[in-house]
């Protein structure tokens, strides 16, 4: 009777069982090699034959490192010796070991090796020398999938920080960026400035020209602001409706005012028609500038509030102008 206990009885398999095991090893979808205690290849399954081009006669009884001279002094050679001499099992991950074995999906094209995760396990036979089992998994597909996933995640993350209408940063990105830059400025005791810009009489623009023209107007204003900023650390974000906030690290109050004036005049020079404006016939901006220089009793919110107050003053003083916050 072939009960479980008789199958698992320690090593007296019939010839048929041995044949079955060899046949199974050859059908496996992983690479299986057995190395004997002298470092010679004892068994080399069909999967490895197909991927290496090395047939059984060439492989069997040959010294592993003579067949693969590139592996001398490699980590794979080391862990095989650890397994045989000290009985220690090892894992060679794909990320830390770039394809140790010369295995190819297509032997005619040897430009790219199969990506491998390799398990090296000691094989103990009672009262016999220790052998070593090498199991090679092809992880090429998994590696490719994870790379794709990572790329998609990065794209999605970028999208999560972009204002879909104007293509500049959104409010979430602004909050994160301004908090980081403010902390950095405080640490290095360097100035940081903020400009808050608002399209004048934008409600009237929308009422007169319609919302799709309003959207187009905001896109042109956003692009105009972007065109003026030329340092990589400067950031423009859509703050709300027709309001934009510009973060200027390492910028004094004077420098920020000059830049704000450049933005104002650039937008005016675009000459976007605005017949219902109270100011003339073109789209204009009002801008408020605030600055942090010393970092006592100040905060990101205070900086934004001060820019907002300056912007309010610019509006009340007649719009289409820059006001810098004064304590």
């Amino acid at each position, binding site marked *: 009777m072939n009960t479980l206990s008789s199958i698992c009885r320690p090593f007296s398999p019939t010839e048929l069982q041995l044949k079955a095991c060899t046949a199974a090893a050859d059908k496996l979808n992983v690479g299986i090699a057995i190395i004997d205690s002298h470092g010679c290849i004892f068994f080399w399954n069909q999967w490895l034959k197909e991927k290496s081009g090395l047939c059984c006669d060439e492989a069997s009884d040959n010294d592993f490192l003579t067949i693969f001279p590139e592996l001398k002094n490699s*980590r794979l050679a080391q862990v095989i010796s650890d397994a045989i001499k000290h009985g220690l099992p090892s*894992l060679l991950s794909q990320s*830390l070991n770039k394809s140790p074995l010369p295995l190819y999906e297509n032997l005619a094209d040897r430009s790219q090796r199969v990506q491998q995760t390799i398990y090296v396990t000691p094989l103990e036979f009672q009262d016999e020398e220790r052998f070593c089992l090498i199991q090679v998994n092809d992880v090429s597909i998994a590696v490719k999938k994870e790379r794709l996933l990572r790329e998609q995640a990065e794209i999605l993350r970028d999208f999560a920080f972009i204002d879909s209408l104007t293509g500049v940063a959104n409010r979430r990105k602004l909050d994160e960026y301004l908090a980081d830059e403010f902390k950095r400025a405080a640490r290095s005791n360097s100035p940081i400035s903020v400009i808050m810009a608002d399209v004048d009489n934008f409600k009237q623009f929308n009422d007169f020209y319609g919302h799709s023209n309003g959207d187009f107007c905001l896109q042109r204003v956003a692009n105009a602001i972007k065109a003026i900023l030329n340092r990589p650390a400067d950031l423009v974000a859509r703050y709300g409706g027709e309001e934009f906030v510009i973060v200027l690290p390492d910028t004094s109050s004077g420098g920020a005012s000059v830049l704000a004036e450049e933005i104002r005049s650039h937008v005016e020079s675009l000459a976007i028609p605005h017949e219902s404006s109270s100011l003339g016939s073109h789209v204009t901006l009002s801008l408020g500038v605030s600055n942090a220089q010393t970092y006592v009793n100040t905060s990101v919110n205070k900086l934004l509030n001060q820019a907002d107050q300056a912007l309010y003053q610019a509006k009340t003083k007649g719009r289409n102008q820059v006001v810098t916050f004064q304590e």
Partner: protein
Amino acid sequence: MNKLSEMQSDALLEIFNVGVGNAANSMSQLINEEIQLSVPKLQVVLKDHAEVISAFIRSQRICAVSQNFSGPLNARAFLVFPEGKTHEIVRRMLGEMVSAEELNTMEEEALSEIGNIVLNACIGSMSEMLQADFSSSQPFYHLGTANSILTSSQTDDDQFMLLLHIDFSMPKEKIDGYLIFLLSMQSFNELIKKIDLFLSQI
């Protein structure tokens, strides 16, 4: 008997320091960057260690790589890092961006390999210096609370925990982790016997 004498404790520390020193060499070769490992401190903790665990591992979640080994004494060995620190190690070793969330499968495997190198080196050093042959399982990756990981892989027999602080130094970065060995009373006593034998021979 559940304590180690100062001599015994020093001997064990030496064995582990030789082990992690070898591991550091292997890892430095693997990534072409100098890594230093040392085990400055060792404690023996009794079975009811839940409180101790929460006290010494401040981070709620940990990453661990474990291997079971058996021979004259049996133990479950863990290399443990706070979850966030694991990302730093993997990032440094892989030299690429690692997402802020969980490690992906390939990164988990890389960490398993790092754990495997450290644990094998410790087992190798123990086997050499205590003249004992051990066999061991392949490494296994865990992520979760210290409590759940250590208790889930613990049997009723495991009454002792050998707790070692491990310093993982890379250029411009130092990360604290732990090596933990869970042992039964019988295996703990066997360990002490082996250490005494080792001490009597030097």
